[in-house]
């Protein structure tokens, strides 16, 4: 079977075609076409031709995309009308009332996704225990539906107070609004994010409505394009939580798509780690404007239940990816006190680093690595431009070296050091917050700039090794071929554990699973490929934070051992918060069911047998890695000439089309059977 994936980023669209019979992997990279599916259809044509295949040969097509994220980032989403309970019109304007920067007096708040004039209040009220306080009368339903229709929205979000306890009022409103506006997508907070706390739930629901129409348009355009080229394989879309979903399921809650882009890299990282026996990993994906980090523990990517995307709180499960604004385009400056700062401003893709000759005139991280000789002076950039090292020397010299009284090379090395320090501290904080010691972890580097910086970061963090996959520039696209279909459902179930009835809980879980089973049937997942994972969100009575605790599969009365469940909760609490109080009674907050539809997956292929021969460098060039030593001759290898078993003692530079890999002095790289460069950072 052939698997096709397309990972669309802001700058490039990466495609991978994988043949699980021959193990052949074909890749294609082309510039993205903003907001349209053109790049994908063009790319598919090219990759099929290159691999000598036809569209009909493709069995599965998985797609990661940034349409939803960009709609939020550029505030270009749908004109959304929000419907809320009377008295809560300003739930988005007020938010959590916190400021992002504690010393900035002149900061502004981002405007809410639904403007104040596009919020409609409903006279109704559900109480804290699900009881009806103010009934929703039919005249009020008609009035609200008419008001919403008069605003001619492109999308509607409905989020009423305590709808997570009883969604009846939301459902009645949905029916009324659908009658008035049959073609406008509408989202209920009790469907999108059925959890307490009106701001988080309302904002998450509004995000779904805000990005929904663009996602819908895009998916429809893509489906039509695929049909035209006779690509009839099922289309699956990457979700933020590392699962995939069908187009129909995607449109039910498009807010699941916000991390569709970076998710693939994390999934691929976990899969590669399992193949290499490195089950604890930090994935590190560095591009032009930002660096993404995530933790993989015991082979499983970490997920988080809440995050901020483009300044907007989003409360849905997603892979735990931390993004910091450090990339190849990050601008270096010397401040009034004489300190070297790097970022957060970025030259981005345009005007870009000075050495790219696209109009950039500020010293960037990429200029620094050009000055140091890490990038090849005669490298040809995308678009046929030559790297202009002299220009890099000019800007680093004038803007950084002169004010600091350093040589150009020392200033360039300083930019790398400061940028590395920022990333190192971000990884430390991330791992501390998750309770792990990253010194036991491997660092998996991808993205264009990741393999350049990984050696520095691993050295600073005391990590044992760096892993660089065969094609770091298109690594995320691999991950898309390693996912399962996922559906999740959350149901509030407030109950002290001591008062919980296992028969009732089983009935509730069964009801939820039945709903998800229908979704898997619709997705075309065979019975044998369906899996259900059950969990309860639990907390200590009197405490605020809750934790998901796995539940066993119910198998008749007495299936739930409450003591065991409490012990599992306390163990999870210990892991998450560093302490546990076994005497404190616990309660259930909600029940969760995750339905998994197992999909066929691509595997990392063995590229050849190990050789004991030494690799032959394509040459040597002077590289400045250490201020004490200055320029040192450094072996340069070409990635595609390396074979499994080849040893690469540092300092060494490995050049390849989509990236540059750096091995520092004292480190040693080795090609593995899967074509991964595994760099040991310690001599032991």
């Amino acid at each position, binding site marked *: 079977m052939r698997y096709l994936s397309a990972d669309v980023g802001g700058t490039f669209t990466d495609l991978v075609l994988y043949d699980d019979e021959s193990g052949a992997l074909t890749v294609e990279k082309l510039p993205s076409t903003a907001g349209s599916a053109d790049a994908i259809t063009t790319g598919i044509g090219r990759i099929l031709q290159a691999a000598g295949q036809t569209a009909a040969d493709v069995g599965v097509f998985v797609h990661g995309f940034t349409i939803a994220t960009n709609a939020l980032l550029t505030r270009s989403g749908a004109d959304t009308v929000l419907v809320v309970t009377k*008295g*809560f019109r*300003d*739930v988005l*304007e*007020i938010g*959590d*009332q*916190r*400021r992002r*920067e*504690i*010393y*900035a*007096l*002149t*900061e*502004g*708040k981002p405007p809410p996704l639904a403007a*104040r*004039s596009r919020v409609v209040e409903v006279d109704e009220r559900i*109480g*804290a*225990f699900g*009881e009806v306080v103010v009934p929703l009368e039919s005249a009020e339903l008609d009035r609200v539906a008419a008001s919403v229709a008069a605003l001619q929205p492109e999308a509607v979000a409905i989020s009423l*107070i*305590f709808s997570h306890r009883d969604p009846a009022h939301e459902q009645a409103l949905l029916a009324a609004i659908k009658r008035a506006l049959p073609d406008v997508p509408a989202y209920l907070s009790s469907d999108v994010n059925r959890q*307490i*706390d*009106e*701001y988080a739930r309302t904002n998450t629901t509004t995000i779904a409505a805000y990005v929904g129409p663009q996602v819908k348009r895009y998916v429809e355009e893509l489906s039509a394009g695929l049909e035209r080229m006779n690509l009839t394989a099922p289309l699956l879309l990457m979700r933020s939580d590392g699962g995939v979903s069908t187009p129909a399921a995607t449109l039910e809650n498009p807010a699941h798509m916000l991390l569709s882009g970076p998710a693939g890299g994390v999934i691929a990282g976990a899969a590669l780690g399992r193949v290499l026996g490195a089950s604890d990993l930090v994935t590190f994906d560095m591009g032009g404007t930002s660096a993404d980090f995530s933790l993989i523990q015991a082979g499983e990517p970490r997920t988080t239940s809440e995050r901020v995307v483009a300044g907007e709180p989003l409360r849905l499960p997603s892979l735990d990816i931390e993004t910091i604004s450090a990339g190849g385009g990050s601008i270096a400056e010397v401040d*009034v*006190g*004489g*300190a*070297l700062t790097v970022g957060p401003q970025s030259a981005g893709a345009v005007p870009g680093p000075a050495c790219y000759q696209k109009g950039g005139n500020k010293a960037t991280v990429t200029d620094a690595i050009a000055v140091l000789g890490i990038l090849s002076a005669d490298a040809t950039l995308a678009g046929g431009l030559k790297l202009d090292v002299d220009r890099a020397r000019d800007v680093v010299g004038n803007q950084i070296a002169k004010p*600091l009284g*350093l040589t150009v090379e020392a200033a360039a090395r*300083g930019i790398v*050091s*400061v940028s590395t*320090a*920022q990333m*190192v*501290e971000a990884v430390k904080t991330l791992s*501390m*917050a998750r*309770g792990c010691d990253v010194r036991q972890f491997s660092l998996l580097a991808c993205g264009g700039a990741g393999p350049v910086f990984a050696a520095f970061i691993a050295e600073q963090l005391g990590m044992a090794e760096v892993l660089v996959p065969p094609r770091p520039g298109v690594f995320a696209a691999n991950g898309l071929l390693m996912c399962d279909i996922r559906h999740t459902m959350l149901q509030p179930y*407030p*109950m*002290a554990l*001591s008062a919980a009835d296992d028969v009732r809980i089983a009935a509730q879980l069964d009801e939820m699973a039945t709903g998800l089973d229908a979704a898997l049937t619709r997705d075309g997942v065979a019975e044998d490929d369906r899996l259900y994972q059950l969990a309860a969100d639990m907390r200590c009575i009197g*405490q*605020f*934070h809750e934790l998901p605790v796995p539940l066993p599969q119910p198998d008749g009365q007495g299936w739930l051992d409450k003591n065991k469940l409490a012990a599992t909760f306390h163990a999870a609490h210990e892991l998450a*918060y*560093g*302490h546990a*109080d076994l005497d404190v*009674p616990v309660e259930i907050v909600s029940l969760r069911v995750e339905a998994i539809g197992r999909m066929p997956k691509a595997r990392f292929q063995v590229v050849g047998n190990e050789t004991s021969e030494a690799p032959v460098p394509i040459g040597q060039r002077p590289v400045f890695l250490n201020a004490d030593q200055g320029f040192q001759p450094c072996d340069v290898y070409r990635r595609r000439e390396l074979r499994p078993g080849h040893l690469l003692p540092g300092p060494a530079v490995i050049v390849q089309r989509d990236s540059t890999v750096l091995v520092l002095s004292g480190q040693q790289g080795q090609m593995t059977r899967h074509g991964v460069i595994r760099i040991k950072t310690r001599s032991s």
Partner: protein
Amino acid sequence: MKGSNHTDPISRDVFRHQLAGIAEEMSVSLRRAAFSSIIWHMYDYACALFTPEGDMTAQADTISAQLGIMPMAFRHVAAAIPVETWQPGDVIICNDPYLGCTHTSDLVLFSPVYVDGELVAVTSTIAHHVDIGGKVPCTTAPDNLEVFAEGMIFPPLKLVENGQINAVLKAMISANVRDPRACLGDLRAQIAGCRTGERRLAELVSHYGRPQFAGLTVDCLDYTERYMRRTIEQMTDGRYEAEILTEDGLASDEPIKICVAATVAGDEIIVDFDGTSAQRDNALNCPYASTVSMVHYAVKCLVAPTLKHNQGCSRPVTVHAPEGSVLNPARPAAVSSRHFTQQAVADALLKAMLPLMPDRAAAGCQISFPSIRAGGFDDRPDRREAAPEGQQPYYIMADILGGGMGGSIHGDGMSAIDTHGGNCPLLSAEVMETISPFRVHQTALVSGSGGVGKQRGGLAMVRDYELLADKSVVGSYLQQTGPDTAPWGAFGGGPGGQARAILNPGTDRETQLGPKTVAMSLRRGDVLRLVSAGGGGWGDPDERDEDRIERDGREGYI
């Protein structure tokens, strides 16, 4: 200012990130281990690193008002228990408002970092404890007369000695606070934060070696000082004055007056509060450490808002507050509600320095701190059913409303935010209604509450709380309720809307409450309405863009 660098600038700049990273790690480990939502959810805590001499070298940015008191607390603690006598594994506790700390609810901890038997650094954490004993639940009450009503006072003491928690102190805490599990749980989280800092600092010292570590530390402090001084040097020398009035409403009808004069001379700023009101017979007095803290906060907002904070920020700034004034009260004046006066310190100084840094300044903002505190039995049937043995659970509920930020040269002020010194979130209505017998009838922006201007002030907010229990004891506190105390406009902008508290609005029992209403006994169905203050406007309102006026009208902001 010290002269040449001990190390190269790159090493120093990498080191600055490393120190800040350690403070950040302390912060996440403290928060992760916290028991109470006031830490976990409301971020009411802070973490910092010090040299053995007491210079703060890095902080995690959470609550700036708390961060600013740590250096003074350090000096008092070190005077009482000399640092040379701190042993590895010790943790020192202090919360005495008259020994460099702030109100008693904020417990300050210090712990030494030893490498090869030598003291190389000190870590510190501070956290707000919901209840530390005293006259009323939640400890703070504006009508307290003396600090002795404000719960436990810890002079500098070893809470942990050689890794062992002091059993006597622990027993005393358990016997004197209303929720010992929360208090001790949060103290344990603070200790966890200190331990993280100790471990990471020791690693860093070992990495660099002690002499290099010390040299880098000095360079970091000197760099920050240089940044401050070079920026202050650009300001026009002179004496800049301002005055802010706030309501007392308890001990006197006379408002509290904060007078400030900021003198810029070369690369230094001298801040003098001469002329400020004498201390009051209530808990609105601001401990001296909090006064100093808010001065440094205000100066940093104008001089270096994005600079990583350390003691170098404070070096070019001198503070004087007359002894016996509300900003430097004498023991045993009560101080637990010092946040009202504390915010006015920042407001006054920012007003005085407005002409110096118009690019980073804003018009006056909400410093009203509208807050409700309630306690009693939650007798709602559903709560009783969920509780063990069906008894009525005792509840405590506290909420703080954000208000408007002042307009600035860059744009309209933010609406509905927690301002100077704090950064606490609003309590979710659904969470509040689940844990306490209240129903929130509205949480809304107040149209027209932003001061007019070319850039208008941010909007205030209003929240209505209906009591659903048979009865409860409720306090309602705020300030900025009159024309003399409302947020001020700048460069021709108008004042922000005034804060107010109303009982049973729109009924025949409607009552306008004063700025501080302590321990009202409310009954089922009573509604308390709190309205915060709007931000002041910036610039001539006649120069306001047509687009903005149109948007204000369309969105109902005016």
